[in-house]
């Protein structure tokens, strides 16, 4: 049973990653290109300032061309990320199965997918949103990665605790109230984590010459907004696909496997 769940999760994840890649190729790539153009223009302006001040320019070579990064690399990245998320989804689904009350297999699929979207992506995004190229100082990558991963781990742990808490409270308060209380605790707890973790604000300000005159503008706000907006969109596409592709497969798998007429299974 667990193997069949894992393979179906992997398949759902790969399809989700593929659709997210198509979405990314259409909506994200133009924004990424604009961000890179901004970065190039800014580097040139910076180098002009540097050479005026007598600082030698520094070279950075290209490992992969933009065409490879923007067509192949992003595709491989999105699909493999989808596979990873599909596998995590399957593991979470297998653990939840039979432990989260009387849910139909397909309802549980949508709930677990929603939990993945929330815990792995959306809650960490609220504190550390996705950034296009040109935003982010190379020297702080270590701290920013640690903060981000810490936020992801905290958000997943708190989500798991919330589900556990909701189940515990259910006997006393009923499903509706227990869900509201547990949800409130989740919001409060993640809010505290977000307050404690340091703020990161590295969006480039306008570049000024020694006299304070602006020689290159700050990062374009519209590009930043659209990049982040589409980043959420791609994750929605990914997780919705995982849930919706897995749901009917789970329904067939679980209705067909064990004793079919057992009421616990039909309702569960």
């Amino acid at each position: 049973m667990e193997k069949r769940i894992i393979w179906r999760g992997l398949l759902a994840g790969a399809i989700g990653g593929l659709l997210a890649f198509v979405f990314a190729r259409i909506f994200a790539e133009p924004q990424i290109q604009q961000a890179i153009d901004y970065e190039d223009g800014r580097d040139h302006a910076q180098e002009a300032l540097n050479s005026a001040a007598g600082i030698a320019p520094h070279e950075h070579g290209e490992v992969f061309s933009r065409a490879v990064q923007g067509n192949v690399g992003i595709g491989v990245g999105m699909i493999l990320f989808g596979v990873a998320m599909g596998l995590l989804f399957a593991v979470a689904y297998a653990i939840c199965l039979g432990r989260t009350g009387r849910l139909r297999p397909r309802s549980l699929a949508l709930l677990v997918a929603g939990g993945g979207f929330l815990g792995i992506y959306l809650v960490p995004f609220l504190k550390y949103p996705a950034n296009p190229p040109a935003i982010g100082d190379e020297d702080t990558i270590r701290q920013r990665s640690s903060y981000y991963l810490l936020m992801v781990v905290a958000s997943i742990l708190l989500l798991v605790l919330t589900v556990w808490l909701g189940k515990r409270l259910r006997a006393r308060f009923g499903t509706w109230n227990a869900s509201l209380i547990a949800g409130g605790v989740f919001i409060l707890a993640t809010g505290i984590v977000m307050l404690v973790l340091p703020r990161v604000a590295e969006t480039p300000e306008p570049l000024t010459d020694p006299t304070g005159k602006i020689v290159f503008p700050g990062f374009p706000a519209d590009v930043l907004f659209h990049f982040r907006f589409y980043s959420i969109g791609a994750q929605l596409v990914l997780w919705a696909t995982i849930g919706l592709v897995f749901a009917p497969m789970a329904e067939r798998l679980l209705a067909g496997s064990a004793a079919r007429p057992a009421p616990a299974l039909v309702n569960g």
Partner: protein
Amino acid sequence: MSSMPHPTTAATPLVIPGSRAVLWLAGAALFAIALYYFIGVDQGAVSVFGSDTHVHEFVHDARHFLGFPCH
């Protein structure tokens, strides 16, 4: 979602038993985390292949777009 009161064991037939299941689930989770790491983190803050940047540069756009911090 039903509000019918029932003992928590009502749905036990669905709980996946056995230590082999745990092995498979743990293996799948580990593999997924490894993928997550290579797409999102490797050759940025930390690197398993030293100072090489091929993985980073190849999935560069996806890494940004999926919400990971990048250079």
